[in-house]
């Protein structure tokens, strides 16, 4: 009887090393429910400091849902309920005393579809610093905007038309504008939810290059359905299946020597 129980527990356990020595974000036994439907099942993982980690898995495996737990974006969905513990620098972000507004300033997010505000390029980037009062004066704000656009690799392309609408840019430029907007509030972690899925290959290459550079300064969690992309941009990869975290490991190892048979099936294209 005892043995059978042990076996079930083992099935739940994730293959690979979920822990990180220099962890920024720690998720412990996280469950997410939509109504009575369990979307995330007992996931434990660490996100290291200045680490790019990709979450991969078939559609509907819960990788985006899990990503949105880190900045509590799931709070905006009425039927969504979260159990377990997620800490940022050892502080539980689901603690009742935590104010979700500054938390989201510390954990930036880039969405699947480029979603610049219907404002000028300048105002798009300046939005975050303005609402959080990050700049002392106009000059400082100008600096923040310029610096953010430079980091997002967009400055050269838009510095002569900062006051034209952000929605007038091309898809790839819009997405880089969204990245600039996210880093303008100096977050510690950046969450990216399939940031290239709506872009063409050239724009995708630019964003990937950017993620690579930003990985030197920020912890980045990127959800992607492209295994090539995961292989290109991330050091660690986590494979999700049906709401469970199946395997975590160095990207190279996951793609060359997957240890779990489900991971292998996905990598080799047997699960889509």
């Amino acid at each position, binding site marked *: 009887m005892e043995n059978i129980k042990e076996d079930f527990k083992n099935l739940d356990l994730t293959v690979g090393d979920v822990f990180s020595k220099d962890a920024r974000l720690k998720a412990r036994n996280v469950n997410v429910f939509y109504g009575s439907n369990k979307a995330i099942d007992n996931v434990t993982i660490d996100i290291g400091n200045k680490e790019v980690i990709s979450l991969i898995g078939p559609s509907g495996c819960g990788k985006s849902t899990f990503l949105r737990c880190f*900045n509590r*974006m799931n709070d905006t969905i*009425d039927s969504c309920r979260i159990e377990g513990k997620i800490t940022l620098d050892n502080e539980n972000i689901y603690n009742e005393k935590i104010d979700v507004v500054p938390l989201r*300033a510390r954990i930036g997010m880039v969405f699947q579809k480029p*979603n*610049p*505000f219907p*404002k000028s390029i300048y105002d798009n980037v300046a939005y975050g610093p303005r609402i959080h009062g990050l700049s002392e004066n106009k000059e400082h704000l100008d600096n923040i905007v310029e610096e953010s656009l430079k980091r997002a690799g967009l400055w050269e392309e838009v510095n002569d038309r900062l006051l034209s609408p952000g929605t007038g840019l091309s898809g790839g430029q819009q997405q880089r504008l969204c990245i600039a907007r996210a880093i303008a*509030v100096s977050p510690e972690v950046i969450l990216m939810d399939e940031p290239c899925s709506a872009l063409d290959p050239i724009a995708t290459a630019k964003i990937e290059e950017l993620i690579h550079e930003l990985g030197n300064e920020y912890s980045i969690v990127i959800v992607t359905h492209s295994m090539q992309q995961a292989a290109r941009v991330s050091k660690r990869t986590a494979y999700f299946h049906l709401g469970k975290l199946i395997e975590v490991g160095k990207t190279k190892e996951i793609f060359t020597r997957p240890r779990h048979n489900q991971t292998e099936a996905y990598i080799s294209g047997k699960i889509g």
Partner: protein
Amino acid sequence: MFNFYLLIGIIFISLLFFIIGHNEAKNIKKINNIKLHSLSHYYGIFVLLASLLPSLGMYFIFTIGDDLLFASLIQNYVPIEVVNSEDYNFTIVLAQIKNSVEGLIFGTPDQWVTDAAEVWKSWVYQSQILTSISCIFTAIISGFLGYRKINHKFRSRNAVEKIVMSILAVSSIIAILTTVAIIFSVVFESIRFFALIPYDDFLFGTVWNPQFEGAERAGSGQEGLSQYGAIPLFAGTFLISIIALCVSVPIGLFSAIYLSEYATSKERAFFKPLLEILAGIPTVVYGFFAALTVAPFLRSSGSVLGLDVASESALAAGLVMGIMIIPFISSLSDDVINAVPQSLRDAGYGLGSTKNETVMKIVLPAALPGVVASIILAVSRAVGETMIVVMAAGLAANLTANPLEAVTTVTSQIVTILVGDQEFESAKTLSAFALALTLIIITLGMNFYALHIVKKYREQYE
């Protein structure tokens, strides 16, 4: 009754053609065993329309044309001495004859009227026969021509498409022409008014007092007592509209924001229909609510504060009108706010904005063109609203900015002028059209300007 039977007949014939065309198409398919270009019922519809539309056109030409033709022909049957008499008016003579045709006889009409009516009756009889023959003939001939076209290569589907498109185009042209006709009818009457009263007296005069018209015309010897300065009326209209907007824009917009951003779906399902009930209340009900409840309340509470509130005040009318247009603003704004993509809200929340910041800095600016459009609609409702102001704002044409006094509006003056029997030679009656024309021009101008603003913002945001 005859016309009704004729229409039924035409429709019956074209339905027959539908069956004939449909069967023919099916037969071609069956006998020759070839594929038709279009589905067989399209051939039926094509033949139906080919028969129906020309004969309907013929029908309308005849029924509209014959009256005009008879009217001009009947002039020959009016005796010379009647035509030469001083108070001869052909419109009245025509009305007499027509009444006689329809059997409405007042007193003993002159012999020539009865004779003319007899002639008219015989014409009607002849025209009915002519109309029926030509309509039915057209229906059959054009239906047959349509039928002849049927073969397996004929693209009836495309032909039907074209015919349907032209029917739709004609409908929209009718709508536009009606608007133009309305404006022209107002313009022509206004021209007659401006022939009597100089336009600058009307546009820039500050006293509205057409009451002495009758006395002047009766020859009391007093001239120039009536004054047609429209400024007090327009001032009253705008005073009331502004009060109404002060009530409805904040309440409507805020409730729209609450409904679309803050309310749970249950609250929304409960509150939104409730708000829309407001739009279903007839304005006359609002009118007596304003006159019997709000105005006395304002008056009594004003006297508590030591204010002198007129029993019919601009404030009462404006407040109630504001309540009336709340649903226009809230319902439309709610739709526009909901149409703002969720991704923009997510972006706002993702950057750490509060709900209020997201609404005020992201959602509302994005929805602004639509919100402005809803406010424009509300303004034109407010400016054109009549019943509430007639009942609650009074008829005293005071030129004042004090909302506690009685004012009057353009629409309520038009109503007072045109209610009852009117003679269309008098400046008083004609002034109603001049007022209407000015009102139309002002609202058109406002709409035009507002649309321009909306367009400007839209370019910036999309």
